[in-house]
């Protein structure tokens, strides 16, 4: 599309980046087809192309109001549109820029501002997640209900094998995951231990920074990113092979560290290095598949599984079919999941801020996942897992796929 | 030929200024069909000949007065065909009349109707203007699709001059299978088979006997035959030709013959009249006296339309009456093409 950016933004780094993204879009509309909000609402304004246009207007200097803000708020940042776009339009980047500018230009009402502020500050602090719940009472009615429903039975972590291998990797602990399912990382450590890799969790690292980032607060995100880099750096210098992330939502953020701090005089290089070392757990396991396969196949093939591929995995990280392949290889039978490209509605804080749309998406997703009568639903992102569980009423258990491989190994 | 066109346009202009109707005709093979004929004859038979035929293009352009036989012979020589299997009704049939009546033969449900293969037309409208629409190419969306509008308009909108068609390779092998089954079963089977990738090219049911024609490459026809069962019929070509041209005894008496066009899955109509079913169930010929009003209502209620095809009393209208909003558009269109109502007036009798 032809663009004509306003003077106030034209020559800034964000302006230049946004312009180059906008210029790539040919307004073909393909992305509408796979956008979850367009599917539900049938309105161009709630589609990627419509949102791109709204942002373009703002960048071209037109007046912007809470109307544009509403349509950007409704976006899940699932990046399904990116997977569909044949012109390679990086919508995710554009909407990050767009949201930050809208936040500055339009602002928020007091109530909305408080809610978002609390989410931004409270959730990222490891250990404070449950405190945030207590705090949530002042933000009724939305927060307590939505979050309360998200607290599933807490799983106790199993043993974490002591570091014993020459090969080692770092793992991101994150903020929400330890509170909900601390066994995911432990299971990862056990699986990797079997193939000769020790997994190290550094306690001083925490939230990846995506929560404030997607609420339009890049500055707050940068603080968290830098803290993680500092925590990991000595290990990296000592030869840690990779930064493994077990929640694909956090993974997309870590993969973007280099981009996020590209203009930071001190951290740019380190951030780029971290992004280069980033691996989703599926990539790490797939790389060791040759050694792992015989170990897995030693036990009896388990049950039917429906795999929910998180948006952050398939659209954000563009990792498609890898987990499915690992599960199949381990003997699981995968059931068909229609519309697998659509978001489950969890999307970071979306389930709290857009409860209605989120609930519809969750309902649709659960219907799709259970259509093949699976015994277990597997996924790769703790937020999606909690979100799905809150809608399933215990009818079908939801697990991280790595835990299933871990159990399979333990049984063999 | 340009002189001939000149004189034809002159005649139309004159008729318009004198307000004298013209009755356009070719070989008169289908003059029994449609509303009453009125006006001075405008014979198109002298405007004849193939203008352009390049088999590699799959496109044929002909003059309206060209005998159908001549065209089919030329196509046959190149291993091609008019895919809608046009009915002749008499050897004198011309291509112009074929397009104007819009009638198609047994292959229709499986490859398409005459309107599906008309690509372009050159016509003279009621004002004596020489106009061209569509073209000699397979895809064309410039302007409204006037050529298809001409198809089946019974010459009421314009005198057809040149017509371009898409043609297709003729299947190399053909076989007809015979089954004994009742009407309801035949309708059901025809529809089931049509939903499967089978090389069916025609279907018929009459008096407890279903016939199915398969066309294509030898191997494909053979494989389909094995799937369907039934018994192979010798000399089936004559059977389909007689059905197409209504030369079978069923069609040859003077009883009113009605053409009932209905959704193919319509269950047996139980009209208590002798019947012949074609087109996978979508075309049902019935013969004999009937209460027109009741019949039309019944056919409309299943989503179809009834036409008095041959013989019988035309005073109550040959074609199925149109809904008032539709009739209004027909009147408007007729006025747009033929403001003086001189082209085949009354031949399309369901809206004026």
């Amino acid at each position, binding site marked *: 599309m*032809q663009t004509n950016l306003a003077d106030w933004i034209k020559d800034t780094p964000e302006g230049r980046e946004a312009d180059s993204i906008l210029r*790539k879009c*040919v*307004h073909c*509309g*393909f992305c*509408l*087809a796979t956008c979850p909000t367009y599917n539900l609402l*049938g*309105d*161009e304004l709630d589609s990627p*192309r*419509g949102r791109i246009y709204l942002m373009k*207007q703002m960048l071209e200097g*037109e007046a912007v109001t809470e*109307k*544009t803000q509403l349509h950007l708020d409704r976006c899940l940042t699932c990046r399904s549109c990116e997977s*569909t776009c*044949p*012109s*390679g339009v990086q919508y995710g980047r554009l909407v990050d820029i767009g949201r930050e500018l809208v936040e500055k230009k339009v602002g928020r009402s007091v109530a909305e501002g408080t809610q978002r502020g609390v989410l931004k500050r409270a959730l990222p602090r490891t250990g404070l997640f449950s405190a945030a719940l207590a705090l949530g009472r002042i933000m009724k009615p939305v927060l307590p209900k939505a979050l309360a429903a998200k607290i599933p039975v807490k799983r106790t972590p199993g043993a974490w094998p002591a570091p014993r291998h020459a090969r080692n990797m770092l793992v991101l602990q994150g903020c929400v995951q330890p509170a909900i399912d601390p066994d995911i990382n432990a299971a990862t450590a056990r699986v990797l231990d079997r193939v000769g890799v020790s997994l190290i969790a550094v306690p001083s690292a925490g939230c990846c920074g995506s929560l404030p980032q997607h609420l339009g607060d890049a500055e707050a995100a940068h603080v968290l990113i830098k803290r993680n880099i500092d925590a990991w750096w000595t290990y990296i210098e000592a030869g840690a092979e990779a930064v493994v992330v077990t929640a694909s939502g956090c993974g997309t953020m870590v993969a973007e560290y280099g981009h996020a701090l590209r203009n930071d005089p001190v951290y740019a290089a380190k951030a780029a290095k971290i992004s280069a070392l980033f691996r989703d757990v599926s990539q790490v396991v797939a790389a060791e598949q040759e050694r792992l396969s015989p170990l897995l196949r030693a036990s009896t093939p388990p049950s039917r599984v429906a795999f929910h591929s998180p948006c952050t995995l398939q659209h954000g990280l563009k990792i498609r079919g890898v987990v499915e392949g690992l599960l199949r290889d381990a003997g699981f039978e995968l059931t068909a999941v229609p519309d697998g490209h659509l978001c489950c509605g969890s999307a970071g804080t979306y389930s709290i801020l857009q409860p209605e749309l989120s609930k519809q998406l969750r309902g649709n997703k659960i219907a799709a996942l259970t259509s093949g009568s699976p015994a277990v639903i597997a996924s790769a992102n703790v937020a999606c897992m909690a979100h799905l569980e809150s809608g399933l009423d215990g009818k079908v258990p939801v697990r991280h796929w790595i835990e299933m491989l871990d159990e399979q190994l333990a049984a063999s | 030929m340009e002189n001939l066109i000149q004189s034809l346009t002159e005649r139309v202009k004159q008729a318009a200024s004198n307000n004298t109707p013209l009755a356009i005709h070719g070989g008169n093979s289908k003059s029994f069909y449609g509303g009453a004929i009125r006006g001075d004859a405008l014979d198109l038979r002298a405007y004849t000949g193939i203008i352009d035929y*390049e*088999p*590699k293009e*799959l496109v044929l352009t002909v003059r309206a007065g060209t005998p159908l036989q001549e065209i089919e012979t030329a196509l046959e020589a190149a291993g091609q065909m008019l895919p809608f299997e046009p009915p002749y009704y008499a050897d004198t049939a011309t291509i112009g009349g074929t397009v104007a009546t*819009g009638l198609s033969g047994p292959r229709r*449900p499986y490859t398409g*109707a005459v*309107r599906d293969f008309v690509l372009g037309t050159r016509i003279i409208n009621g004002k004596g203007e020489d*106009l061209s629409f569509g073209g*000699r*190419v*397979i*895809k064309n*969306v*410039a*302007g*409204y*699709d*006037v050529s*298809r*509008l001409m*198809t089946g308009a019974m010459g009421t909108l314009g005198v057809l001059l040149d017509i371009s068609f898409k043609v297709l*390779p003729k299947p190399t092998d053909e076989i007809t299978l015979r089954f004994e089954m009742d009407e309801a079963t035949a309708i059901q089977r025809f*529809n089931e088979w049509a*939903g499967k*990738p089978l090389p069916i090219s025609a279907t018929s049911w009459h008096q407890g006997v279903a016939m199915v024609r398969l066309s*294509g*490459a030898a191997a*494909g026809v053979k494989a389909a035959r094995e799937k369907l069962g039934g018994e192979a019929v010798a000399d089936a070509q004559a059977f389909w030709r007689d059905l197409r041209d209504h030369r079978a005894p069923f069609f040859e008496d003077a009883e009113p013959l009605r053409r009932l*066009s209905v*959704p193919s*899955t319509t269950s047996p109509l139980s009209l208590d009249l002798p019947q012949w079913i074609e*087109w996978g169930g979508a075309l049902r010929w019935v013969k004999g006296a009937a209460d027109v009003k009741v019949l039309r209502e019944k056919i409309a209620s299943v989503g179809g*339309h009834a036409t008095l095809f041959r013989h019988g009393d035309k005073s109550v209208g040959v*074609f199925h009456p149109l809904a008032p*909003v539709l009739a209004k558009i027909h009147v*408007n*269109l007729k006025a747009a093409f033929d403001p003086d109502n001189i082209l085949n007036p009354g031949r*399309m009798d369901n809206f004026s």
Partner: protein
Amino acid sequence: MNAGLLADFSRITPALNVITDHERLRPFETDAFISHRAVPMCAILPEDETQVAAILASCSARGVPVVTRGAGTGISGGAIPSEDGVLLVLTRMNHIGKVDHQARTATVGPGVRNLAVSDAAAAHNLFYAPDPSSQLICSIGGNVAENSGGVHCLKYGLTTHNVLQVRLVLSGGESMTLGSRALDAAGYDLMAVVTGSEGMLGLVTEVVVKLTPVPEHVETLLAAFPSVTDAANAVGRIIGAGVVPAALEMMDKMVIEACEKFMSAGFPLDAEALLLIELDGVREEVADQLVRVEQVLNDCHAQEIRRAKSDAEREKLWKARKGAFAALATIRPDYYTIDGTIPRRCLPDVLARYTQLAEEYRMLVANVFHAGDGNLHPCIFYDATVPGEMERSEELGGKMLEICVEVGGTITGEHGVGVEKLRQMCVQFREAELATFHAIKAAFDPAGILNPGKGVPSLKRCAEWGGMHVREGKMPRADIPRF
């Protein structure tokens, strides 16, 4: 905004989604023909036919123009709004009604996505045959309005061959049914006139489409050629050999490279031209055709012939083909696609003339098109930020279309006239023919409020432009008066 009109709308139903603010209207100012734009007075997203009829009735009573929009993927600007008019966006009328597998039909709302129809029919082993490259998102209503074709229309036909019945609402608000669920309907073939009428005759509010059995067997071939001429020759020879492929598509080098870069389709990069050929039908029939086609390809100097070994491989090839236009956008920021159709035998000659023209204009032109149909889609690249480039690309495009008319073809095979090809309409048609089109419009839309100014140029504008009618090499007729 017209206050009386707003009051009318609020009486229809309070829930009617009417957009009147500039901020939210602008995203509707254009479709996929982005070089042209206009912000409408208001946009409405109706939910059903009754609302559509009521909106139209008040618009015609007040003489307010109405433009219909489906998915907004049109590339001739058909859905670009009128500044003083209402834009009706039908994307919410996306209900898939009955899929009748016995009768092989599906009844769908106009806003249903083309591909969603095939998805809904898949369980019965049926599909909706017309498959425009935009099938993922373009709407059935838009398809009917444009008479869209697709890569498989050589064998399966265009929209007009695959639609049985439509519900149409006229500008005055009257609704009616055209066509029928039978194989024909009484009266004139109004379905044919409405199909491809670009929203100028009425609004399509429901469509009954014909479903086709999924072929038993499919073979997809990729053939690489050392020259465009060789590939073009092969196209004619394949059809001459009595084979009608389900699809027969051609791409030149520039397209091959763009597709490869963005979709890693595995196209051979050393070829000057590619043919993508699909054969389908009964297994034995396809086997027979395959032999004949491979023979022709070899005779025409194909340097490489590949057969898709799996459905996944086939899908990858088609995905690359269907995404070709968007992938091309990476060559230069802006492009302009032409849609002329020519008799197939003129392919080598016309393509050569295009190359020559492109050189004269010093512009990049890529070719990816429906070769089997003779439907050309040269893509002219330009940079809109360079002054004059867009105008030059449009001029070059105009010349290319005139060549199509000159060799007996047409200015648009499937994309429609819209606002884009009005000038070329004057080249293809004479005054009396254009007047006929205007009369047809008036027969349906006497108020003249539907998509005004599109599709058919006024005689006055043609006269202003010089009205150069060049059909089949003939120069404008001296005997027709100009005014």
